[in-house]
């Protein structure tokens, strides 16, 4: 099954980090995130994914990861929240103040309600537009923007370097009047 493994390995190399980060953000727990990760990529093998381009593949992976995370929640309604220091793969920035800030950001995001957290992750970490997130989550784009706005209020200035909001969103609106489906 050489070609299958090559495909799988390339997919993991290209998008593995994104899937893992999303799962970690959703589940806040490395063991669960790894379970979801494995599950997502094994499911990929049942898909006619060979012809997909990189973005299609990534969107499918993230969406499947979200679904798997939801399934995981059904079994474990309450989980402990991991702090940034407990992440094994995490390299702390050399600068202590910056490290402090990032740890606080992580903590704040981790304690956001799940719906806000998912949107924040897809928007800020993966750089998806609100329409794309809407398509991925199956909710209206306006809802995604509302969630983002609420999340920003809670995150205050922790995000940093990002004077965003209105112009960003309206720009995207004008450019893409119709949400492009992620799948």
């Amino acid at each position, binding site marked *: *099954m*050489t*070609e*299958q*493994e*090559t*495909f*799988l*390995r*390339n997919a*993991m*190399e*290209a998008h*593995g*980090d994104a899937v*893992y*980060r999303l799962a*970690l*953000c959703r589940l806040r727990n*490395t063991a669960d995130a*790894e379970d979801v*990760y*494995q599950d997502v*990529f*094994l499911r990929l*093998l049942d898909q006619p994914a*060979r012809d997909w381009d*990189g973005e299609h593949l990534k969107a499918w992976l993230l969406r499947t990861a979200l679904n798997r995370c939801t399934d995981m929640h059904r079994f474990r309604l309450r989980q402990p929240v991991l702090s*940034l220091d407990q*992440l*094994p*793969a*995490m*390299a702390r*920035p050399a600068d202590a103040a910056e490290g402090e*800030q*990032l740890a606080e*950001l*992580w903590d704040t*995001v981790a304690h956001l309600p799940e719906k806000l957290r998912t949107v*924040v*992750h897809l928007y*800020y*970490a993966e*750089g998806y537009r609100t329409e794309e997130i809407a398509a991925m989550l199956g909710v209206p784009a306006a809802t995604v923007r509302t969630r983002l706005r609420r999340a920003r209020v809670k995150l205050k200035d*922790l*995000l*940093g*370097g*990002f004077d*965003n909001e209105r112009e960003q969103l309206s720009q995207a609106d004008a450019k893409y009047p119709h949400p492009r489906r992620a799948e």
Partner: protein
Amino acid sequence: MNENNYRRLMQNIHTPAGLNDRVLFAARRNTAQAEGKRLRKKNWRPVLRGAVCAACALALVLGTVTLVPGRSGGEQTGGTPAVSLDYSFGLTAYAAETGETVRPNANGGLALDSGSGMASEEIGHYTGCLFQVTGEGIETVSLAVNRGGLYRSETRTGLTTEEVRKLWQAEEAGGPVCNVYGESENAPMNAEVMTALGSSTTEDFDPEVRYGFWVPPEEYEADPDEDLRQAAWASIDTFDGARLTVKVTFADGTEQSKTYTLFTGRLRAEYGEDGTLNMLPQLAGDQEPYVYGIYAISETDSRWFQWPVQDSRTVSLGNPYGTVNGSFHSGIDIPAQEGSVILAAADGTVTEVGFDADRGNYLRLDHGDGLETVYAHCRDFTVEEGSTVRAGEMIGAVGSTGMSTGPHLCFQVWQDGTAQNPVAYFDSEIRDTLTAERED
């Protein structure tokens, strides 16, 4: 994308080490269960004796490249058959996963996948890049590599537990290294027995024996913190640029030898319509499927071309050589500006200049020994039928005639009337300069 703290935070988080290998292992196990019969030849229940072998065996996915052997030139020229025509030999690549041998069938080269490798500081690195010597009437085989070393790999089947224990004892005593696998705990076991040979060896010929590339322990540097796959690749790179000399003696006492130049790297892989994996003799781009391995090129059998377009080193990915969506494309497309100079890829004679609706203005060059090149969709030509051209001589200009949507050259290579992958006919210096472009 806008920079922000959350993104910065997330960029520090990576997939944990070993997770990808675990997924690959799970995938392989699932597949093996689903297709138990197909994999019977080499069941994936390796009895692993250390994490190192596990990672190597899993991380180095195999494939085999098909490279077209040009008809060995010497036998064809001059019309008089060479004296030693009765006997000849060649190398085939060995695909460890399926147990199949793959004949070289491109420009005299073969690609050796890094199959079931094994490595440790004590035993060195058995890269899993395997080949076999084939031919009629061979008595002895001499192999020599000018860098690193070689090993012999044999498969023993139907071993009892006692025999396996003996193999392991022998290994501990410094004997051959073995990789034992079997269908289940109780079934007879199989073993791949690997014997290090040093940098050269002479042995009696055995068609079943496979030889592989081995990095001796003193040259193998294992950094325990390094990713295992990266370490294995770095180790395989020992052979980049090395030369392998194969000398055989035949039953009638005659000798022949061939020298192969080795290259290593991420060889680009391509999926055929039927799901088979072909490796292309070119480096893979970032997003492309690839197989890491050694690529061997016969110095005598291979024929090399010059790049046929001045000022463009791009190969279109949108319409590659091979069968895509059921239609066969017999060449590679090289996008270039209208009017760019087309150069003869090698010395030859113009045998045909013509026009048809599909290829537009096209020109056929005969290079002898059944090797031809075709240049299609051209604007015009500067040579006529019957003229003799030298390699690198201008023969025409790039255009967009025939079934074409933009100025490009469709470059085809034909051997005895069969289309070949043109990329195999450019040496590594040219291949390394090529860029692939996807048409949107």
